[in-house]
């Protein structure tokens, strides 16, 4: 093998790795769809609270949680069927989100009813869980925009401890918008740009 052949072989390897990297890039749809459902849910909860319709709060939260779970399951199923390549990084992320989703369900629907803490602590704990999940996802998938969106959630968690009433809904909505939907949009834009090249 000559020097040029060795370099040609290295260029084949580089080309294949680049192609695979491009084909397995994160589309951002997961963040976008679940972000939109969560934002609608948060605004609905705010409206119900403002209208003193407390009886409707739990059904609204159940609908939001079920919708998010259904969307996540649909995206996961679609990835499995449509995507010809499975990466270790994505598999790790799905398990991470499954674990964080289970933790969020316990925080939302189990512990407050067992009087472990009051309902006012729920959004704070959800924000912390989100911050951890996004930071880990950003690290595993090498997506700085997702990694650093955790700061929005951690800041939101701190702010939520300082305010009550309607401002909490505003803080939570801002968290979802800046810490989930905006990064999702940025990822989706990058993904579409790369796909069209």
């Amino acid at each position, binding site marked *: 093998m000559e020097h040029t052949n*060795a370099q040609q*072989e*290295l260029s084949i*390897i580089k080309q*294949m790795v680049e192609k695979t990297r491009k084909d397995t890039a994160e589309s951002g749809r997961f963040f976008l769809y679940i972000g939109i459902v969560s934002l609608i849910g948060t605004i609905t909860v705010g409206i119900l609270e403002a209208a003193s319709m407390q009886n409707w709060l739990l059904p609204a939260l159940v609908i939001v949680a079920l919708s998010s779970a259904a969307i996540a399951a649909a995206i996961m199923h679609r990835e499995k069927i449509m995507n010809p390549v499975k990466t*270790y990084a994505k598999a790790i992320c799905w398990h991470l989100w499954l674990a964080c989703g289970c933790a969020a369900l316990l925080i939302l629907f189990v512990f407050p009813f067992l009087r472990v803490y009051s309902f006012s602590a729920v959004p704070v704990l959800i924000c912390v869980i989100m911050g951890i999940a996004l930071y880990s996802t950003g690290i595993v998938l090498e997506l700085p925009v997702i990694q650093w969106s955790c700061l929005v959630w951690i800041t939101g968690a701190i702010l939520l401890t300082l305010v009550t009433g309607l401002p909490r809904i505003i803080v939570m909505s801002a968290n979802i918008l800046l810490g989930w939907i905006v990064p999702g949009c940025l990822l989706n834009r990058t993904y579409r740009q790369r796909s069209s090249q």
Partner: protein
Amino acid sequence: MSREEIKNIDPLIHAPVRLAVLSILAAVQQADFSYLKKTADATDGNLSRHLSKLEDAGYISIKKTFEGKKPRTFCSITKKGREMFMAYLDNLQKIIDKQKGDV
């Protein structure tokens, strides 16, 4: 290039299609047949032959499944395959470094 260097180059990985397949599989958990065919720019028969050789050598594992009525073939690199591929890369790098030194 010395005899020793030639001996160190794994002939099983040396073929361009097999090198391309191992490069893809080293970067992912598993990839299906159609993806490998498209990315490595190979034909069905050609790729099948190369995959069989890699499987016989224990470098990759092939799993055939059904999604509905549609058959799908998934390939993944084995531990041995990954080690051999890394050794192959090391040898390539050594050859390039040596040639650069000679120049």
